[in-house]
């Protein structure tokens, strides 16, 4: 049952400790960043399994995916999952580092169906390839667009501007 908005039965530090205790093998760098947000990192190989377990956790289960962000950190690409728990009314921000040359990671659409369009957008803009995604097409740009414009090394191409 959902709580009243804004109420949280657990201390943020307790949530972070619980994450370390139950998911210590997969997550690292767990810290409380905001009054209602815990940030953690995980390896891309562990993501799919971890996502299902995070969602099904009985006390701090993160049932809802708010959005998936793709970020170009220059040294690497990051896929960031913002998930929300109705059990504690708090957020988890899960960062997954991906190498620039091979920005691929398993999809989480099987766990959180809302990830579908968000992962398409991250593919469209940053060029993260979500393996196993049911329909990985561009979502905002036109289908024959060349490149991924939010990459830091993107150069504007003549091919993308037929109307000159």
């Amino acid at each position, binding site marked *: 049952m959902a709580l009243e908005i804004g109420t949280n039965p657990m201390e943020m530090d307790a949530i972070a400790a619980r994450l370390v205790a139950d998911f210590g093998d997969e997550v690292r760098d767990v810290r409380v960043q905001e009054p209602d947000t815990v940030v953690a990192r995980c390896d891309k190989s562990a993501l799919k399994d971890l996502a299902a377990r995070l969602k099904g956790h009985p006390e701090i289960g993160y049932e809802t995916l708010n959005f998936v962000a793709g970020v170009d950190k220059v040294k690497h690409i990051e896929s960031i999952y913002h998930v929300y728990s109705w059990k504690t009314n708090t957020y988890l921000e899960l960062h997954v580092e991906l190498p620039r040359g091979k920005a691929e990671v398993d999809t989480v659409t099987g766990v959180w169906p809302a990830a579908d369009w968000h992962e398409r957008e991250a593919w469209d803009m940053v060029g993260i390839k979500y393996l196993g995604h049911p329909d990985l097409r561009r979502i905002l*740009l*036109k289908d024959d*667009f060349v490149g991924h*414009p939010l990459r830091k090394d993107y150069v*504007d191409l003549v091919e993308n*501007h037929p*109307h*000159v």
Partner: protein
Amino acid sequence: MSDASPARSGLRYPKLEHFSEPNVITTTADFIFSWARSHSVFPFTYGLACCAIEMLSSGFARYDVARYGMEVFRPTPRQCDLMIVAGTLNEKMAPVLKRLYDQMAEPKWVISMGACATSGGPFYDGYNVVNGVDKVVPVDVYVPGCPPRPEALFQGLLELQVKIQQHRFVAERPAGAAVSPVAAVEAPAPVPAEES
């Protein structure tokens, strides 16, 4: 009635007090058609960004574009003769805009409303931005502003009225060849001589 456009286009409107009793107007075909056409423009709702809010505002009671006979915003190009492009045109939308423009019936006009539609505006040179809607369709009137106020859009509409009224329907005849079109219609065709 607008007092800006008739003086500038050289056309004079009859005034209401001329009709206090049964009366007759003599006028030209050019005048009456361009007068009617310039005051019954059907705009095509092409709102792409925040300029659309100002375009909608110009349609509501406070500004009321109906004063110029242009209140019938249609959502289909088939019923429109004026396309008001209000907002940023991006590369994905450009072919759609061209297609909808092609579907409009002649005669048709385009107003480029705001900085984005005119040149790309603050998004100039963006990776997915067309730097001006005139790269895709011919534009008749540019309205500057970001976004333009409804008054600015009205100024553009009045300029468009002037442009519409400058159109001449009756073709000019070369001097000396003037023939009354009525006489030409009523003149009997020459009957070829019967061979007997």
